[in-house]
Each structure stands twice: as C-alpha cells, then as structure tokens.
C-alpha cells in the first residue's frame, strides 16, 4: 500500500490531520462496509480539496476509490460502501488545491459471517 501512496504523492510530505475517515471498528460483514471521508476545508476557489484517494492494505489490490471534487462540492465529503477481505488499515489521502497532501487512516476488524452457502 505504501508504494502506491508514494506513487501518488511523489516526494511531497504527507501530513496527518484534517482528513476524517470513518469506518466501523468491528465489521459484521466484510462485503459491505460503510465508509465516510470528510475533510475540513472551506472549499473555496482558492482553498479546496481537489481529490481524495482511498487505499487499503490487505485486499488483492490497494485502490478503493479516487474522488474528484472542486469548489462546487460545497463540502469535501464522500460516503460509500466497500469490501474488506480481512482486518486491515484503510488510508484516505486528500490532495489540496495548493498541491499539498493530507491523510487520515482507520483500522478495521473484519469478522466472518455465520452459516454461509459454502
């Protein structure tokens, strides 16, 4: 996961803060995990979030979603539902309009469902 994050941000420093990544800490079913990212930003032309990149640690591939925003969003906010193959860390990285990056992360425990079809 770190390698792909590096590919995204290059040599720029990654500052934690401002990015709130919300996921349940224990998940009843890894197939559908609600996820919300909200970033503290005035979302003006001069100062806004351009994009949010969400990565995971243990799924077969590291990318979850890439969200493209702008001042017309009003709020830097995205909510969706994701699949998690195992207990792992999720990282959300915001690219701000000034070219800097901020990050937030959450650790999730994924449990197995009882009585499946297999």
């Amino acid at each position, binding site marked *: 996961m770190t390698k792909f994050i590096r590919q995204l941000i290059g040599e720029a420093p990654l500052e934690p803060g401002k990015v709130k990544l919300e996921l*349940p800490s*224990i998940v*009843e*079913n890894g*197939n*559908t*995990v*609600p996820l919300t990212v909200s970033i503290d930003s005035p979302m003006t032309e001069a100062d806004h979030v351009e994009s949010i990149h969400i990565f995971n640690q243990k799924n077969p591939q590291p990318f979850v979603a890439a969200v493209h925003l702008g001042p017309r969003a009003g709020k830097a906010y995205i909510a969706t539902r994701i699949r998690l193959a195992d207990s792992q860390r999720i990282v959300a990285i915001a690219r701000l309009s000034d070219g800097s990056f901020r990050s937030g992360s959450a650790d999730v425990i994924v*449990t*197995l*469902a*009882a*009585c*499946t*079809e*297999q």
Partner: protein
Amino acid sequence: MNGVLRPLLALAAATVVAAAPDEKRSGYDFAGPEIRAMQDDDTANPGNLWVLQGETLWGKRAGAADRSCADCHGDAQVSMKGVAARYPAFDAALRRPIDLEQRINQCRTEHQKAEPLSWESDELLGVSAFLARQSRGLPITVSASPESSPFLDLGGKLFEQREGQLNLACSQCHDENWGKRLAGNLIPQGHPTGYPVYRLEWQSLGSLQRRLRNCMTGVRAEPFEFGAPQAVALELYLMERARGMPMDAPAVRP
C-alpha cells in the same frame, strides 16, 4: 406430493410445544448500528432496488392472458396491504400451505397463463419484495387453524430436530442461545419479519427459503429443495412463531 407428506405428518402427529423466546425481538435489534442505518434509509437500502423492479413488473402485462398484476389487483399499496404478513397461507384447493413466492407463481400460471418465475430470480424476488414492502410496519398475522395445524406441527418438529454433521437443531441456536455470538455475528431469534432480505453475505436480496438453506448448510445438513413441503412447513412455523411482530421488509442483515 401426498406420498411424501403423509409419513411426515404421521411423524409430527404429537403436538409440539414451541419454546419461542418470551420477549420477541426482531433481527433488526441484533444487527449493528451501521446495518440498521442502511435499512432505515430508503435510498441506501439495497433491497429497494428489487422493490423498484417489482413495482415495474406489477404493471407489466405477461403471459397468454396478456394481463398484469395491476389489471386484477389495481394499486398494490391498497390491495396488497397486509398480504405478505399473512403468508404462508393455507390453500384450500391444494390442501396445504403455500408461501408468498408460490402464491405469486400461482397467479402467474393460472391467471396470467405465463411461465412461473424461478426461485431466487430477480423477477420473483422483485415482486415478493414489492409485496412485502406493502406490509411494512404491519403485524404478522399468520396463526394456527384446524387446517394448518398439522403443517405447523411439522414445522415445529423440524425446528427442534437435530440435523447435519454438527447435529444441531434450529431451536438450539435461536431459542436457547439467541443473543450470544457465532462467528462475529450475534445470534438472532430467527423471526422472518424482514424477508425478502438483503443479506450482506449474499450482496443480493434473497428469500427466507434461501436463508434456511444456508442455516442447514451451516450445520452440514442437506438443505431442503426450494418449494419442498418441509421448507414451507418450516416457513409457516417461523411466521406463526413471530406473529404480532411488525414486518420490516426489505430488511438488511449481515
């Protein structure tokens, strides 16, 4: 059909004493806050995608009779109110209970003169979800009657019978150990108030019969075939055991 039923009914001749939980709690209460939030929000509840499909099918003409459900039943919000809450229901002509999916197919074949919809097909789930939605908030009204008693007894017997390699009976989890954990989920009481249900494990809507088959596979027993008389008897028993509880279909469950 009779050849299979008669020996089974003879087996269930003794009255079964149901040990249902004293305080009946819906599966909704055993699901976590995120799942409950997903169910409560009509746009976020994936079950509503099937309700939409059912609503479209309701108005679509089908079969040699070229009739839609609406042609006979009009506005489902009026005519179908409370219907899902009383199924499985005893069918006088067939002299046995049938569940909602079987009733839908009975209309399709006898009145629309169309092919029946297959078990677990999106179409059948759609119509059944649309109908179940019309009973949301209404209490389950399935109850014992002289004709349905033998089938209720059979259902109860099946509920309490150990089965499978794990040699477990439904009652052992759902009457005796509800509220405790099994593989990360809380064991619910097993009331079918929310069917057809969007089960996160399936990432799809599914029927009560599908869920019961999962339970049986879970204890390593051979699951009932879709539409088998034992499956319908068990559905009947479960709905009667849940009588009075409000329906919350389409529900979201882990």
